[in-house]
């Protein structure tokens, strides 16, 4: 299913297909990393993703 969302950083329109909650995508316009979040009403939104922490890894 295709959905249209807006980049919270640059407000450009982003079209997504078969998204998974928690997935990270990059905004093609401004380059910021965005996380796909599911709202309480079941719709999706994009939030700016956390940046790499010193304790990130495996």
């Amino acid at each position: 299913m295709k959905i249209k969302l807006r980049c919270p950083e640059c407000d450009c329109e982003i079209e997504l297909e078969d998204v998974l909650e928690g997935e990270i995508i990059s905004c093609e316009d401004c380059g910021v990393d965005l996380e796909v979040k599911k709202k309480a009403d079941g719709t999706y939104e994009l939030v700016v993703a956390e940046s790499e922490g010193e304790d990130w890894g495996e």
Partner: protein
Amino acid sequence: MPILSLLYDRIRVEEKLIINAAEKKGVELKPIDVKDLHLVITDPSKDREIFGDVAIERCISYFRGLHLAAILEGKNIKVINPYSILSICGNKMLTSIILAKHGIPTPKTIIAFTKEEALKAIEEIGFPAVIKPIFGSWGRLVAQVKDKDVAQVILEHREEINNPLYQIYYIQEMIERPPRDIRCIVIDNEIIASIYRYSSPDDWRTNIARGGRAEPCNLTEDMKEIILKTAEVIGGGVLGIDAMESKNGIVVHEVNPTVEFKGAMSATGIDIAGKIIDYAVKIAKK
């Protein structure tokens, strides 16, 4: 059939593979973004229904995952991996202590708490030496120390970092090895897959996150014995055990408790994600 949860703070390829594997096996797995949680620790019975019978902890942030595991175990929820494994493997010094105590071959390691003593330790090890933070992953800030000048600069930089963990200096001998290391995925004390990780032409580190390349690896019986003994002393669970080929056989240098396995899965074709689900189901039934 038991209910599982997948605790994440970022969906990597591995988390997608785990979600898909559960779906294929008809196992109920609830993905939970831990960034959306707050947990009551003074009432251990609260929140239990959220996490199912077993929680597969896959946080990209080590400290977040470590603390989360402790909270859930306080609520009598089984966690893969448990806090005991996470606390050892997330700290390279604690891992080295366990390996050395059980006679598992590992590079010579010295710890120092000041820049001055760290320099002495590097000279005692001999050049080139390797200096690593005791925490962190993906080869972050792991440096090859080729001479005394480089040592001084690295130590000065470390001293400037405003995090006391960076001032616990972990210094290791540089193992003379081929331009690769060995990554073994061990689940429930069984070797599931083994790969060579070749370093990229631009980096001496073999981490896949640094551009390393994976190829299947056939372990010898001697190697298998060392890897399995490592898993045993760490406490089982789901582990990524890293070893290097020295002139005198393999030496284990790291154990990863939230192992990234996309390289191993594509190089070997082994369904590692499926094995993790099988293991979680087995633990739930215990």
